[in-house]
């Protein structure tokens, strides 16, 4: 929990003297990997940041996108992994709270939450089940109380997360462009701490998160209070409406140390902070404790002297505690006082900018070992289909999302459980949002794996009729000091950059979380990609498939079984070739599907990914309560074995439900665009049935499939 000798030396040279113990603590908090990105920053510069919708400004904690009509959408993603692994309820809840405040910081109202969760093997591991249940409850209790809908997300279970948890939360904000916080400050302005009181919780949380998880450090876990957060949101938005906020920052990792140093650095001013003024929940807190506490539900606001009274009145009206803790100076220093005595004084640009590192990277040896695997023996495929439907990674997540209020705010037009969620905006447009990740693919091939996650998120967005306008990433890996792990990080960033450049989707925000490992080893590389899209017209609303409707598959199926659910869940085989995105055909496929949607030619559109064709078709049949007979010979594919056609997770594929009256138009449109496709099935009866030339390959009853798919997760968590 301190600086390395080199960092210590660097700090001494920069300030020209020995730092005192408090100063060391302040700098150590800010220079932690969690706050400083010292390992990752050089690589993150590869990501394209510019785009026609992107609004950038100093000190924004979230990405800002212009969506037209004078409105903006903001987005941010964060994780709360270490705390959630120790105390899943509080860790997950405060994870929601933290990302919400980043959205608020820009001056926008949070309108949606998405979460991505990862745990160990919940079928066998009761600890993983406990973590899962309580993380879900933590998110539900916090988000529900705030009245911010949790509209989507994704969940993955894998043994590499044993005794650990990844809890990632993304939040979306919406507001008027003219009300964005300008983030400026002038000498003499007041610095005000608004919200929850400061106590001894979350002590040194950012440093706790910057080391591998070896012991359960409970005092490093923050305590959630969604009621205070709700009051803070309303008070801050009212203060924004009354132009009382010149600059604003959320208190998150690193507590006051980070908020003060980063604010003064970003605004090119100095801040004089008086710790005795901070409203506290406990007595006798030392300056160090006050500076590194990560107590939640706190915002730092800068206001001019003429607006101070009004801001105080607003806080009092909403009964939100606040304290005037400091003033803006013009000396670019952060000066910390306790009872008028200076206890720390540091140049804020030094504190806010840790010396960056050049970490060595070496291709991991395991990649060689798993590059080729022997094709497993095909089992009874009907049984395999049912088995796969109850795989926790495939099965319906209804048990989770029905615990989240996903309707509050009355924007949720396409609801959780679909490809992507869609929110209506006040400018008449619709916003589609989705996050995707796949640690199994990324383990087998970090670069192609993450491009696949990106492609999957884009496909999900496209299924709603939206065009991607921006993305956020969350890069989660083990200890970066291990060159093999650092290599996987580098590869992932390169993969994201390649995809983002090709598809011209700007990266508007992101987060890096390293040191995700326990005594049992590191997690698999887990980059997450969140994509936002805009629908100018109407979203693709599902119409029910009826007898004689046709199933069209867009895209080519390849033998890409590495990291597939079929290999890993059914056969316990890790390795092989993971799906590789062919960017040119992916783009063509997406464009054609968007055209089909805009001409209203499809009754419904789905992405084909985890679990492959067999799972996607089964899920469509379950949702429509109708059977489908699929001819595998019609699937555009390389020469594949039957199980490979059924379960390969090749990217860039879509499934369309098309009525017989529209099928010629759809066919013509796809042929003209030169997009590979096949009319692979027809809906009728009550069987999901896959056939090839030799006859029936696999067949399951829709009601049986539904029973497995809908209930297996719930029965695992409630009876396990």
């Amino acid at each position: 929990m301190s600086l390395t000798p080199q960092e210590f030396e660097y700090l001494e040279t920069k300030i020209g003297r020995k730092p005192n113990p408090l100063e060391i603590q302040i700098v150590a908090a800010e220079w932690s990997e969690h706050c400083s990105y010292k390992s990752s920053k050089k690589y993150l510069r590869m990501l394209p940041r510019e785009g026609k919708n992107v609004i950038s400004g100093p000190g924004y904690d979230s990405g800002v996108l212009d969506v037209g009509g004078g409105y903006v959408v903001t987005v941010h993603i964060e994780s709360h992994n270490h705390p959630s692994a120790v105390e899943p309820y509080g860790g997950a809840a405060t994870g929601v709270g933290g990302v919400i405040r980043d959205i608020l910081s820009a001056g926008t109202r949070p309108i949606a939450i998405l979460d991505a969760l990862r745990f160990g093997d919940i079928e066998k591991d009761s600890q993983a089940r406990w973590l899962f249940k309580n993380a879900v409850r933590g998110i539900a209790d916090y988000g529900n109380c705030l009245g911010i809908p949790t509209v989507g997300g994704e969940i993955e279970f894998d043994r590499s997360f044993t005794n650990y948890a990844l809890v990632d939360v993304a939040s979306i904000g919406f507001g008027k462009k003219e009300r964005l916080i300008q983030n400026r400050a002038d000498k003499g302005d007041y610095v005000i701490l608004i919200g929850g009181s400061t106590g001894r919780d979350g002590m040194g949380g950012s440093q706790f998160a910057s080391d591998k998880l070896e012991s359960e450090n409970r005092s490093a876990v923050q305590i959630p209070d969604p009621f205070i957060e709700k009051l803070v949101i309303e008070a801050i938005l009212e203060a924004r409406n009354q132009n009382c906020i010149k600059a604003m920052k959320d208190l998150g990792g690193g507590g006051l140390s980070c908020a003060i140093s980063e604010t003064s650095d970003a605004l090119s001013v100095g801040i004089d902070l008086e710790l005795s003024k901070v409203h506290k929940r406990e007595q006798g807190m030392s300056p160090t404790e006050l500076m590194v506490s990560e107590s939640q539900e706190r915002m730092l606001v800068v206001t001019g002297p003429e607006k101070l009274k009004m801001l105080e009145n607003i806080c009092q009206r909403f009964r939100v505690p606040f304290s005037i803790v400091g003033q803006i100076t013009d000396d670019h220093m952060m000066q910390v006082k306790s009872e008028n005595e200076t206890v720390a004084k540091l140049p804020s640009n030094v504190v806010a900018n840790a010396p960056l590192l050049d970490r060595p990277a070496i291709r991991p040896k395991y990649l060689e070992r798993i590059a080729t695997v022997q094709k497993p023996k095909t089992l009874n495929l009907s049984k395999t289909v049912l088995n796969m439907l109850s795989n926790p990674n495939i099965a319906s997540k209804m048990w989770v999302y029905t615990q989240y209020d996903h309707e509050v705010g009355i924007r949720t037009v396409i609801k959780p459980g679909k490809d992507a969620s869609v929110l209506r905006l006040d400018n008449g447009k619709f916003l589609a949002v989705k996050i995707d990740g796949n640690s199994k693919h990324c383990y087998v091939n970090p670069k192609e794996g993450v491009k696949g996650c990106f492609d999957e998120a884009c496909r999900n967005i496209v299924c709603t009729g939206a065009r991607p306008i921006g993305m956020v990433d969350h890069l989660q890996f083990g200890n970066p000091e291990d060159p093999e792990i650092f290599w996987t990080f580098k590869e992932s960033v390169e993969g994201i950059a390649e995809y983002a450049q090709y598809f011209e989707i700007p990266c508007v925000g992101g987060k890096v979380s390293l040191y995700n490992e326990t005594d049992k080893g590191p997690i698999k590389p887990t980059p997450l990609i969140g994509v936002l899209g805009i629908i100018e017209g109407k979203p693709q609303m599902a119409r029910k498939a009826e007898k004689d409707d046709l199933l069209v598959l867009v895209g080519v199926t390849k033998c890409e079984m590495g990291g597939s659910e079929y290999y890993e869940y059914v056969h316990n085989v890790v390795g092989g070739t993971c799906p590789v995105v062919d960017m040119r055909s992916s783009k063509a496929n997406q464009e054609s599907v968007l055209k089909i949607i805009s001409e209203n030619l499809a009754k419904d559109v789905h992405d084909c990914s985890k679990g492959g064709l067999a799972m996607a078709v089964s899920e469509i049949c379950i949702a429509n309560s109708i059977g489908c007979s699929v001819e595998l010979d019609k699937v555009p594919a390389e020469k594949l074995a039957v199980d490979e056609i059924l379960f390969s997770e090749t990217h860039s594929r879509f499934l369309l439900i098309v009525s017989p009256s529209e099928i010629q138009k759809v066919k013509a449109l796809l042929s003209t665009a030169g997009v590979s496709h096949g009319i692979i099935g027809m809906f009728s009866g009550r069987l999901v049935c896959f056939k090839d030339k030799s006859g029936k390959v696999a067949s399951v009853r829709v009601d049986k499939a539904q029973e497995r798919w809908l209930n297996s997760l719930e029965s695992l968590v409630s009876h396990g």
Partner: protein
Amino acid sequence: MKIAIIVFPGSNCERDMNHVLAEVFKLESVLVWHTDDLPRNIDAIVLPGGFSYGDRLRAGVIAANSPIISQVRKMAERGMPILGVCNGFQILTESGLLPGALLRNTTLNYMCKWTEIIVKNNKTPFTNKFRLNQRIPIAIANGEGRYYADGKTLNMLRRNNQIVFTYGEDVNGATMKIAGVCNKEGNVVGMMPHPERSAEQILNPRDARPSSMIFESLLNALGATA
């Protein structure tokens, strides 16, 4: 025609309700912060959903004991139409304006989903446009939504026709599947489901028409569209 929506610290459905009343049904609605007085010349009151006071102690109990509720009580006694939705219903039962109590759902989980309710009393200001036993596809979202009443209270409810809505299925273990009740006079109605989330077709996966009739009934009761 003016409707007051009472806002407590932690209420979170007041803006949704305001949108539906003002934008969809073109009524004049006003958000009233709990420390302010009820405006004069109002014609109806809505207690919206949310987590007033963070659901501390029990859902709705702190709000039920706050000063503005005594003003609401006076209006109730004068026969003004009052609707409590979700947390608003919990506040109404906690304040004694409605009989019964709302307990944790039998699953012990928060539950957000779409279901159907059935109109059992079409004489209230919020149900007068419905046929008896008409079904309403509607959103529910609550953790403490299981209506409970003892035998004596149930007898009273039945005798006075105070059961307004029942669920079409057993969603949370509520006594007699009750989803909404009214006072003896019928002017105060509480319901767990959210009509404001269900009255626009773009949000309702089934049919928004029946839910919108809850608001049309109010218009009717106030003489706006007779």
